[in-house]
């Protein structure tokens, strides 16, 4: 041992059986890597190996005494009644802090880790089942029971939340509205609604944001972000995107998604602990923006979109071209493009477009008006 041994010192001792303090003298045992407790009451001396000593609780800087306890091999700490050693905050205590090797060790009761694994698995499986099976299932059932008026109300809230988030958590009104631009958008919508395939009252609008994206909210609200108009090179491309989103509207996908994310958000906030309302709202809106519906839902929306385009006599090729261009730009694809690249059946359907006489989705003047709707 290199450091000199300290002088024996007066200390206190609690035996773990009563709350009475016993006066003792504690001394370092020469060469034995242990300390010896000598009791004033005349009990036999007790030697404690340094390796078994543990710090008791915390040690605030201003504490006059330092508490130690020592390990007794056996059951876990909670069940045991270890004795406590109270050393004055002085030379002996300082020596002990450097000489005892395992002071800070936290002794874990046996079977803790196997229990952790069991409980952890149980919790993970239960929560996962809730998030990915039960809640989506319930959301699908609930979505069927909701009236259309209620669905429209939910949709308005969702669009409001997304607008709020896109504005950088500010109450600014981002909806773009020029007379010519809105008229052009309406004319495109009319081509779709005139087919008789749309049962919802569609409320389409453009929001002034650079993201290349479009989404459908519950109840027939369709939102196009300005970035998508900027990136599109023909009205057919925009029409293709809209037709796909209208497919989601008709099969009530956004409503199911809104209910599902409302249910999931509560559970997620439970798991993550911190539950500030703002973050939950943001997470929900974020999910809506990047939401990938199930593969089946996407295929259904696609197929509906193609039928709609055919009925409205708009070429389905715009969507294909648009998709390829966006994919070449790299980065993460927004939901509208997520179910692609095109499957063979989709290509077949698109090829059938030659059978009908497609006309441009908008006249050149209307297309220019729509592209400048946010100016």
């Amino acid at each position, binding site marked *: 041992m290199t450091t000199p041994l300290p002088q024996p010192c007066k200390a206190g001792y609690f035996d773990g059986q009563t709350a009475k303090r016993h006066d003792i003298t504690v001394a370092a045992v020469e060469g034995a890597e242990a300390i010896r407790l000598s009791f004033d009451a005349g009990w036999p001396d007790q030697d404690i190996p340094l390796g078994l000593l543990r710090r008791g609780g915390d040690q605030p800087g201003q504490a006059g005494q330092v508490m130690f306890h020592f390990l007794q091999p056996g059951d876990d700490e909670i069940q045991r009644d270890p004795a406590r050693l109270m050393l004055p905050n002085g030379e002996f205590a300082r020596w002990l802090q450097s000489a005892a090797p395992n002071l800070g060790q936290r002794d874990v009761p046996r079977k803790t880790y196997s229990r952790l694994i069991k*409980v952890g698995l149980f919790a993970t499986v239960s929560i996962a089942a809730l998030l990915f099976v039960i809640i989506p299932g319930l959301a699908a059932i609930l979505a069927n029971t909701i009236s259309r008026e209620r669905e429209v109300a939910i949709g308005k809230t969702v669009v409001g939340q997304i607008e709020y988030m896109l504005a*950088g958590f500010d109450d600014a009104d981002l909806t773009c509205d020029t007379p010519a631009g809105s008229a052009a958008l309406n004319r495109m919508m009319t081509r779709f609604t005139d087919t008789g395939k749309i049962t919802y009252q569609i409320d389409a609008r453009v929001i002034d944001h650079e993201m290349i994206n479009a989404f459908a909210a519950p109840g027939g609200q369709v939102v196009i972000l300005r970035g998508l108009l900027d990136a599109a090179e023909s009205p057919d491309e925009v029409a293709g995107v809209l037709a796909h989103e209208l497919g989601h509207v008709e099969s009530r996908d956004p409503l199911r998604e809104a209910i599902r994310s409302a249910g999931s958000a509560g559970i997620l906030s439970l798991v993550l*602990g911190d539950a500030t309302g703002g973050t939950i709202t943001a997470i929900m809106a974020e999910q809506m923006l990047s939401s990938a519906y199930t593969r089946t839902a996407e295929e259904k929306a696609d197929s509906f979109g193609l039928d709609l385009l055919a009925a409205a006599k708009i070429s389905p090729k715009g969507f294909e071209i648009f998709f390829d261009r966006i994919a070449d730009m790299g980065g993460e694809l927004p939901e509208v493009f997520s179910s692609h690249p095109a499957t063979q059946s989709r290509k077949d359907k698109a090829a059938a477009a030659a059978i009908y006489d497609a006309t441009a989705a908008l006249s050149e003047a209307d297309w220019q008006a729509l592209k400048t709707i946010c100016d």
Partner: protein
Amino acid sequence: MTDFSGQSQTDVRYIGTKSEIFNLGLKTGLLTIVTLGIYRFWAKTRLRRHIWSSTQVRGEGFEYTGTGMEKFLGFLIAIVVLAVYLAVVNLILFALGLEFVSEPTNQAEMVGQLILIYANFFALLPLIYFAQYRSMRYKLARTRFRGIRFGMESAAGGYVWRALLLSLVTLISLGTLWPLMSFRLDKYMTDRAYYGDGLFEQAGKWTALYRFMLPFGIGIALIVLGGIMANATDGGGMSVLLMIAGGLTFYFGLIYYQVRTSAYLTSNRVLDGKIGFNSNPSVGSIIGIIIGGGLVVGLAAAVYFGIFAGIFQGIVGPFPGPAMIVFAVVAYLFGLVLLGAISLAMITQPLLAHVLGATQVLNIEAADEIRQRAADKGADAEGFADALDVGSAF
């Protein structure tokens, strides 16, 4: 009641410092962010260990022996129960709620929404009371003084129905029976608490708490008076002044009630029929700490989030890419951790030092005769309390 005149009086001391608790709060808070929240159970454990050890009687500190691991395990179990419970409750509410909101008028829709919110809260209320009792029991089971363990009987069920009943009584009586609730619930817990083999006992009368309601009552009276005047005279400065004065009196009256009630209950607690307590904190000092500390925290929040908003506005470009969102979230969470640590140092620490410093133990010599109690096997960690965020700070 035991007479303690002529017996020894020993001051309780809180020796933790602002810098210690700030550093601890910051360090454990950062670890909590890095581990996506999982470390919070260990963070709470370390904070408690610091506070317990800093609370000293005759130079001997309390000891907190709880572990982060047991809290984490308790939480994992509680969360599943809670998630299933909430899912079921909300499914039922959603089905019922649909009836409310499909009513044609807007008024009815609003009522429906309100019912939905309150129903959710009331569905959780029994669990919250359950968590309160279990959390207290767990904390006592993991507290030692002089090597001797505290404990509490396993009786959460009795606490839940009493608490629900007393809440209802308080609500129906428009708050005038609040002292009954404060007293009975505290007595229920105290009378079941042990230090070693020594049983605690809550003496005193619930009617004694009424005098602590006076400032609080005056606040309400002022607000009502201001409201009546505003209605009678179509506004006017006097009624506004009355309402503001009433609001402040109401708020500080609430603090006054809580501080004095807690001091009264402590002063009327007896351990093992032999050991008494005395508590006399100054309400003025406590309000001073809350206002002063609150100003510091508020100022820090304004500065930090002011800078944060400035930077964030500056760098958000056309594509708010994932990197930017991660940066914003991390900066936001770091701000919350920093403010949490500041409020620990500027509010929690001074409050603990003041309240504990104003407490005395009477006839502590009798503690020498107290013997160890058997371990409470069922006192597992406070899973529900953690999941429901009961008992917030520590």
